[in-house]
């Protein structure tokens, strides 16, 4: 159970049970769906961007604890941030969940997902919402897939 606790940390279980910003934005400036065809998970993200700043961000959908918690934590991390910081955060987050590298600076609570690095099959769950945000900013019409 101990190594499982490294993956399923309290913060993750909490965000899975009580996801933050779990709603639809009525008039988002940006929106995209992310699907993980392997498991059927589907997450929609909504952004309200004004003057280069993420004023509001939310998500909806069904997924595993890792993808739900990751989406929830992501919305908390991105709200109020300048759009041009997203790429840095996504890169840093990706590094944390896929390599043994030291946790990059500025990730804050997102680093609780570092345990995913020991579960390669779950990396796609952790990055699904981030891929969706990326797609939203590029205004993809088709849902973006992790495959």
């Amino acid at each position, binding site marked *: 159970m101990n190594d*499982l606790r490294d993956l*399923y940390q309290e913060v993750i279980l909490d965000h899975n049970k009580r996801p933050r910003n779990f709603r639809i934005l009525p008039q988002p400036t940006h929106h995209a769906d992310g699907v993980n065809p392997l498991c059927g998970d589907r997450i929609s993200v909504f952004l309200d961007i004004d003057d280069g700043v993420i004023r509001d961000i939310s998500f909806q959908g069904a997924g*595993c604890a890792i993808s739900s918690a990751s989406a929830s934590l992501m919305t908390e991390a991105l709200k109020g941030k300048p759009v041009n910081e997203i790429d840095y955060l996504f890169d840093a987050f990706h590094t944390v969940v896929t390599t043994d590298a030291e946790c990059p600076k500025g990730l804050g609570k997102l680093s609780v997902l570092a345990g995913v690095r020991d*579960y390669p099959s779950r990396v796609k769950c952790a990055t699904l919402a981030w891929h969706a945000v990326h797609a939203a900013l590029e205004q993809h019409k088709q849902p973006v897939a992790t495959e």
Partner: protein
Amino acid sequence: MSALPALTIAPADKTELDLTSIRADFPILRQRIHGKSLVYLDNAASVQKPKAVIDAISECYSGYYANIHRGVHLLSERSTMAYEGAREKVRAFLNAASTQEIIFTRNTTESINLVASSFGGSAVKAGDEIIITGMEHHSNIVPWQLLCDRTGAVLKVAPFTDAGELILEEYERLLNSGRVKLAAFVHISNALGTINPVKMMVDLAHARGVPTLVDGAQSVPHLTVDVQNLDCDFYAFSGHKLYGPSGVGVLYGKQALLDAMPPYQGGGDMISVVTFEKTEYADLPNKFEAGTPNIAGVIGMGAALDWLNAIGLDAVAAHEQQLLDYATAQLLEIPGLVIMGTARDKAALVAFTLQGVHPHDIGTILDREGIAIRAGHHCAQPVMQRYGVPATARASLAVYNSRDEVDALVKALWKVKELFA
């Protein structure tokens, strides 16, 4: 001297398996996963291989391997004999009338694609209909959708009940349109475990002159299939779910239909005479086996059938049924666990959801306990949509599984609940 009362000797229980000896046949089962004994319950995805199969493949490559059907040298003759010997084993296993009706493919998917492409391409026109059921694996949906896209034919889907049983009246109603060119349906659902009444479904189709294809990927390891008795026109399955190697599949087809069908792929081995003006095709079954096949794989599948026959499918089925009943009862003890697929006639798998825990998380936690299950949509997304769930967890049984392993599964699921409490 008066006759002694006749002794009533109970017949030896044919269904009794020597589980210890069966498990000893599988080298992989001895290993530990994350420090725990491996409990392999992902058999509906692919089953593990007995040593007899591994040895047969190894013996082929180390003892007599060469290409088949063309060499005059001894090794080619021996490989050809072993390869064609496996075809005879498959014929006997299915009780097909002739080895000409046994086509080797890569897997069930390719077998179905062969029929969709060759039979479908020649016999199906715009406005015709193909019937499938709502509980098909993607491999018995997508080939027909592609055929419909090419030809303008229409795919019709026979629905099933909440328990996961086909609604026969609806299937029959679809057959009555007069435009149906083929009914293709799954024998045992990989997502629900439902055993469909395939004999009845074949008869209903034939009563209207409609040929049938049965997807037997999940059925051949669990129950006896007699294609002559079943009278289906095509029967498709894979070697890798039948204790044989991956990369080998079978298409059974009635000879008259196969004779009338154009080749699926062109190349070597499937011709008799080739000139640049015209090619004459080989007779069955070679007409449908273009190119060098998976020689050692086919021989390995033959060995798998020998191994399975020595145990007896009746004994396998009885063991798995007992285990299924036990697993079902044990799993239902867990609060919040819902079993998807409760057909009266059901084979050795349990698909379930656990309230508040996504199947992916169940799969990861069970893996750390050494237990391999499948979590996801099981390549049957329409079935998931039917029940309104994104995914399920599925524990599927094989002949080597034990009650202890079911107990380990149940115990681990309690841990899942504890973690997510």
